[in-house]
């Protein structure tokens, strides 16, 4: 299939080159790691994330005031290696330690754990972490590696980033990052498979009249394949799955994301959001903030995910705090 690339081997590197000139970012020498140009910021906990590429604007697109200090870019859908993550951690340590937001995939978790040991051995860097596992499609059981980390991670970046920006220490950042993680759920669906640069063909086959529910963000198959349905019906499916998992009381306040998977027209995302807000209203939930757009993508996949975060006063304040990044801007 056609792709707007040069060579599949150089996609990640060339993407980073393009980001560096467009935004206020700096590349850590000899790595695929990008940090804010003034990193490390003295006197502030460094906030970092990282993972495979193909989810843009995740991860480097959330670097900036009020969110991440740096991010490591692995190959497409492949965890960055531990030595790269260790470089990232050390580059973002302004003396107050570094906090890592990790999505729950075995490769990511293990490479971060190894990186943290390396950073501690080499530079005595103090590190804390949160592992985000918001995908309600995957059952958390003894026989799986647990729920995946998907679009809810962006809320965690925002909340932890605001706390770090306000001068919170590692323990305070961990507390709010865990609070957000425990109160967020996401469910996604695909109209088409993504096509990776390397393979050049759809990762999974989906018939012209079929959709896949409960998909991940790497072209993993979902939990259920059905006939294509109208947007409202799809939205009902996704939302009910998330609400069932969160089990909120009537009157609870929430923030929502209707996230595009990379190949979905914004028009369609708004159609989904319209229905989402109706459903939440029917459940007696108060929607305090709603985001619509591409936040956590899966290359060129057509489809969307719905994320709901249950709020308290502290989370509301942190979500509302200013942020200025390529992928998300919040103004006072």
């Amino acid at each position, binding site marked *: 299939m056609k792709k707007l690339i040069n060579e599949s081997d150089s996609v990640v590197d060339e993407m980073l080159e393009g980001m560096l000139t467009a935004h206020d970012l700096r590349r850590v020498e000899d790595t695929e790691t990008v940090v804010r140009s003034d990193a490390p910021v003295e006197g502030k906990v460094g906030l970092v994330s990282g*993972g*495979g590429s193909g989810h843009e604007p995740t991860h480097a697109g959330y670097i900036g005031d009020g969110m991440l200090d740096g991010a490591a870019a692995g190959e497409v*859908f492949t*965890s960055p290696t*531990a030595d790269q993550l260790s470089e990232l951690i050390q580059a973002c340590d302004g003396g107050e330690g570094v906090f890592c937001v990790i999505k729950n*995939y075995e490769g*990511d978790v293990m490479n971060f754990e190894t990186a943290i040991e390396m950073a501690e051995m080499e530079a005595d860097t103090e590190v804390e972490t949160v592992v985000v596992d918001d995908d309600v499609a995957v059952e958390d059981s003894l026989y799986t590696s647990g729920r995946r980390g998907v679009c809810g991670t962006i809320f965690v970046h925002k909340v932890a980033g605001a706390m770090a920006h306000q001068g919170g220490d590692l323990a305070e950042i961990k507390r709010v990052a865990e609070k957000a993680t425990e109160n967020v759920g996401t469910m996604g669906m695909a109209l088409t498979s993504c096509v990776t640069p390397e393979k050049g063909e759809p990762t999974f086959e989906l018939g012209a009249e079929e959709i896949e529910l409960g998909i991940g963000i790497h072209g993993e198959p979902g939990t259920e394949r059905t006939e294509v349905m109208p947007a409202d019906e799809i939205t009902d499916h996704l939302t009910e799955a998330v609400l069932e998992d969160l089990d909120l009381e009537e009157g609870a306040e929430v923030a929502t994301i209707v996230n595009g998977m990379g190949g979905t027209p914004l028009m369609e995302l708004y159609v989904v959001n319209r229905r989402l807000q109706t459903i939440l209203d029917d459940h007696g939930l108060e929607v305090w903030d709603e985001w619509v757009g591409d936040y956590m993508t899966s290359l060129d996949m057509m489809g969307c995910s719905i994320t709901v975060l249950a709020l308290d006063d502290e989370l509301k304040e942190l979500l509302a705090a200013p942020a200025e990044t390529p992928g998300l801007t919040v103004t006072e």
Partner: protein
Amino acid sequence: MSGDTRQTEAVHDAIEAIADRLADEKEYLTELDSAIGDADHGANMNRGFQAARDRVAETDGDPAELVKTAGVALVSEVGGASGPLYGGSLLKASQELDDGLTAETTIAFAERYLETVEERGKASVGDKTMVDALTPAVHTYKKSIEVDDCEPIEALGKAVDAARRGVEFTTPLRAKKGRASYLGWRSVGHQDPGATSTLYLLEELLDVATEYENGEVAVDAEADIDPDELPEPDAEDVPVDGGD
């Protein structure tokens, strides 16, 4: 030749031997992995150990330093979960070799390696992972020395036998960790690639240790054998998932 020099050379030889072996077994490991994983274990391990061989060849240092160098090379070159599992564990366990290679330090090395793999991969015996080869090997090595009074070289031989039985034991198991676990019952009937590559690492350690023990490389009593680490390898198995 001093004992220290011999130990250093033994470690160089061991890493060299493992790199050669993985190059030879690349296709077979990939074949095992394509049945229940993502078909890259052979290529990843081969790439990692070729890098380890190159970097260690350029390194002067004691055994602990060399093993650490190999670990860092694996971490940066293998990728996915195998990098942390094989490389990160080597890196951590290398700290146990600061006093050189003796029966005591190699037991500590082996135990630390196993412990790191178990913690990082959150895997136990029976999950169909490298732990199934590593655990019997490490336990057998320790017991043979501490309880049965075996010489380390003999203990290592028994450890390799134990690992081999562990690898065979993975075939009928249902995978509970790693990509293979997503297959559920369909993972039954396939030998685990990570346990298999772990066995190769151990077999090569035994080979090199035996050469040194037989005096082909001079000897000095007291150095107990093993080049390196012993247990090192490990497997991957654990799978990994995507990343992202």
